[in-house]
């Protein structure tokens, strides 16, 4: 069902956890399906220094969370904003068709976290 890459990121997820006083936090949840994903960013000089996630969801949801966080770590905010759902799925070697919907969550949560970061920055100004 899942590729080896997916299973690797599911069994050994990277960046699980929370960041205290995160620069930005984004949470998305698909109520109908029951999955919830939360991403924490630590941004310094417009660069994502650290990123953590917590996910309640299927194997694909956990693996995409892990992969998405890996892909943006060390990137600039603008680079991170370009991350697409498809890029995450591709990096995982593909996802089963019925799992595409939950793979969308990771990029969505990331975009929300960035928006939160920007809002906080704006508030500081």
């Amino acid at each position: 069902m899942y590729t080896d890459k997916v299973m690797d990121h599911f069994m050994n997820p990277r960046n699980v956890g929370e960041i205290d006083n995160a620069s930005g936090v984004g949470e998305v949840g698909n109520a109908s399906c029951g999955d919830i994903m939360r991403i924490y960013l630590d941004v310094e000089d417009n660069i994502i220094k650290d990123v953590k996630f917590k996910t309640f969801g299927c194997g694909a949801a956990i693996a995409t969370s892990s992969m998405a966080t890996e892909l943006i770590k060390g990137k600039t905010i603008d680079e991170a904003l370009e991350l697409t759902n498809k890029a995450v799925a591709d990096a995982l070697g593909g996802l089963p068709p019925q799992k595409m919907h939950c793979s969308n969550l990771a990029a969505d949560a990331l975009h929300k976290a960035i928006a939160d970061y920007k809002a906080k920055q704006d508030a500081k100004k």
Partner: protein
Amino acid sequence: MRRVYLDHSATTPVHPGVIEAMVDCMQNHFGNPSSVHSFGREAKKLLEEARANVAHLIGARPEEIIFTSGGTEADNLTIFGVARAMRKKGNHVITSATEHHAVLDACQALTKEGFEVTVLPVDETGMVRVEDVKAALKPETVLVTIMHANNEVGTINPIKEITQLVKAHGAIMHTDAVQTVGKIPVDVNDLGVDLMSLSSHKIYGPKGVGALYIRKGTKLFPLSHGGGQERKRRPGTENLPGIVGFGKAAEIMARELPEEMGRMGRLRQRLIEGLLAIPEVQLNGHPTERIPINVNVSIKYIEGESLLLMLDMKGIAASSGSACTSGSLDPSHVLLAMGICHEVAHGSLRLTLGRDNTEEDIEYVLDVLPQIVERLRAMSPLYAN
């Protein structure tokens, strides 16, 4: 790696004696049971022996058994077959919310043919209330179909009491006994039902074969048409190896049932105790009125598919009512019907025991599971530690 199969309500391993009987059938008696010659007559003999064995397991007469391609077909044949045959008498059918999709979806399809379907609720243990059946019976009611035991939570319904009401009312009573036959004693005359669905692959027989018990005198239209096989109720060349395997499985189950039932019950108790020792775990289903092979718990804050995958990596095969396992959007309709919320239903875990399981298997699961639960909870945004 140790492999522990705990998904016997999904399907069972095929019993070695069953495989042997099937191989013998295919190697030595491959004829078409409809043929006049000796190859055909030998095949016919095996067919009727299998029918007698299946009938015996549920206290029926051989001529009241017709073979189908599985439990799903037996359910559909009943629902469409009886409802259509009774159309002139009435157009109301009663079923329950926790039925297998084969029953629920067939009933749903019936509504397009002008039938009205009442779907009875269940209590929080997953049981149909006898008084609800009573209240739902109408002059137009022609068929009531309530499962004997549920496949997800194992709750056993009071079919005998329900049947008495239904028969007194003059309607036809069907029960889907796919999950009880071979697991607890089942007798069509004790229960009093008119029709009963069975499936071979839940009792250590092969997949792709099932049976419908049809009490003598029960009218039923066929679902498909063709040859005269199975008293014209189910045409097509008989699945002889499958039927022979099913017959053999029935024979073995009839013999082993009394002892296995006790052993399953004991393993089940140990498993439930061990699981409930994990914090924030709840048992789903009825505390006592449940088939001895079924354990169903909800493990809060975690999602079923992830849990299954991690168990799988440890060699443990289980199932879950989570929506994510099925690729559907809603978690198990059974758990929801029992009043369990989406989130908790998502974290459900079903472990169903079988004849190969040992105490060591159970201890292995109880050893491995808490760590997995901990790992997944550590990842969960719902879990505050």
